[in-house]
């Protein structure tokens, strides 16, 4: 499993060093504990947006730190959630007084570590909220699983929430927007090959030349079903159908009650998509699939959406939320309204996403 790395234990640190050297105009890195933060943080009067998760999904999250997106990103070891001290120290660094919104992908590890971090920040008097991203339509049942994983919608949410934070949203309004984007977004991913973590002598799962994995996450977990390899059109049809035909999804999430200083359970239900809606279409590479192949997927996905009466009003195509060198792709569809489009279009200046301004 050849990779361009040095000692396995230094992988994350050295990648962060390289990032800081390359993008020192936008961001800086704290090394003990690890977090990437906006060069000009704290931004006066602005709610800080923090995300984080295991490394290996670059450019997410570190590559999204900068004007109009994240104030800080906390990278764990490869495919391993970060620890609470990272998010806690990051919160202290980027909080301007207006508070901190944590965008948390729904994986047990991320949730538990971010919850602990929120408790610590609250203890320090930092206004804090955690909003869960759980958009992976390949996970069906929230009762018999740890719930839907956070995948592609994370990127879209970080951009939109970051734009609104820049525009002066307060913590509660920002949390409402984050929750809405998550509830409007759904994703499906497939893999043509497995990924291998640095130092491992084999990929986390192996696929023959005749099969692909449907419904994968972003941590090299095997998916739900393994199928005979199909054409780009057929695979795209399966992914888009899984998203558009997905029924209402209900689960209980925990959000922080700043008054009481305790976790409050909330039941949330995502409505299914409905013809006539405006949507953002995001076609993502898992890392090893080149952008050329993504365009074949985009083509078919856009055709199906059009046929089914949706209006693709914005899009994103490229490797944004990856799984090391895994070959494969994911599709994320996010219902768009005026507020969402306003902050999608807002200027952003990060290593990974940049426009306007």
């Amino acid at each position: 499993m050849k990779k361009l790395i040095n000692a396995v234990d230094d992988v994350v640190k050295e990648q962060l060093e390289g990032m800081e050297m390359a993008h020192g105009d936008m961001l800086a890195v704290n090394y003990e504990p690890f977090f990437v933060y906006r060069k000009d943080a704290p931004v006066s009067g602005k709610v800080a947006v923090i995300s984080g998760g295991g490394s290996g999904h670059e450019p997410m999250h570190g590559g999204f730190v900068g004007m109009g997106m994240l104030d800080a990103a906390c990278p764990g070891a490869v495919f391993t959630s970060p620890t609470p001290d990272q998010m806690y120290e990051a919160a202290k660094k980027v909080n301007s007084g207006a508070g901190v919104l944590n965008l948390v992908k729904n994986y047990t590890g991320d949730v538990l570590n971010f919850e602990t971090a929120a408790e610590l920040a609250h203890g320090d008097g930092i206004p804090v909220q955690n909003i869960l991203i759980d958009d992976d339509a390949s996970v069906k049942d929230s009762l018999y699983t740890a719930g839907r994983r956070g995948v592609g919608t994370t990127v879209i949410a970080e951009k939109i929430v970051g734009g609104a934070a820049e525009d002066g949203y307060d913590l509660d309004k920002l949390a409402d927007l984050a929750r809405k984007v998550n509830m409007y977004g759904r994703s499906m991913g497939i893999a043509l090959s497995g990924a291998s973590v640095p130092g491992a002598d084999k990929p986390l799962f192996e696929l023959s030349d005749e099969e692909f994995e449907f419904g994968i996450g972003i941590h090299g977990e095997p998916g739900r079903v393994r199928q005979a390899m199909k054409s780009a059109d057929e695979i795209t049809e399966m992914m888009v159908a899984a998203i558009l035909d997905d029924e209402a999804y209900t689960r209980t999430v925990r959000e922080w009650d700043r008054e009481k200083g305790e976790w409050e359970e909330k039941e949330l239900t995502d409505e299914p998509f409905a013809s006539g809606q405006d949507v953002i279409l995001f076609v993502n590479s898992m890392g090893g699939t080149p952008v050329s192949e993504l365009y074949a997927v985009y083509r078919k996905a856009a055709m199906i959406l059009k046929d089914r009466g949706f209006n693709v009003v914005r899009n994103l195509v490229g490797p944004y939320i990856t799984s090391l060198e895994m070959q494969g792709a994911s599709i994320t569809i996010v219902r768009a309204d005026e507020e969402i489009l306003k902050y999608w279009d807002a200027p952003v200046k990060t290593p990974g996403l940049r426009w306007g301004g």
Partner: protein
Amino acid sequence: MVTKEAVSKWLDAMTDIYLENQKYLTELDSAIGDGDHGNNMARGFKKVREKLPELQEKDIGGLLKGVGMTLMSTVGGASGPLYGTFYMRAGGAVDGKEELDLADVVALFDAGLGGVVSRGRAELGDKTMIDALTPAVEALKAAQEAGQSVEEALQAAAAAAEQGMKDTAPLQARKGRASYLGERSIGHQDPGSTSTYFMMKTASENLT
């Protein structure tokens, strides 16, 4: 009575067992998770070993809380906050003590279990570390009622943890990463219950 030295020996033995079984735990996690549980535990306990001389200055409660803080800030993943909470609560249950009797030992593990449940909200049978830890604590309590020695109690607990660990194999996971596999998680032993069994096994061999 269990001395602080015995507790230190236990932590040391645990570090050894996690390093020796790093590959094994990672393989178990590769089958139904993301293949890092062994690395996570090894990373955490290497740090514990590094900090042990400094932590030993404190009483047993402080020592265990220090272990919890260390795991919390080095392990990450699901097991980091879970084991972190385990040791912090366990330490809280024996605050100020320089020696432990059986009641203390029971309180220690019981409080730890309570911490894991309140953080992770898993139920028995969800195919998690809870499935090894719960029977172990029950065995401790039973031994205490039967008036057994610390040594006998911990041996019973280790045996119960081992059985609980093995019994995770036929279960379908409902918590953690393995739950995404649905029925495909059946037939594989849960990695977290295995690291919990190692904790109980080394406890029975060292907390004497």
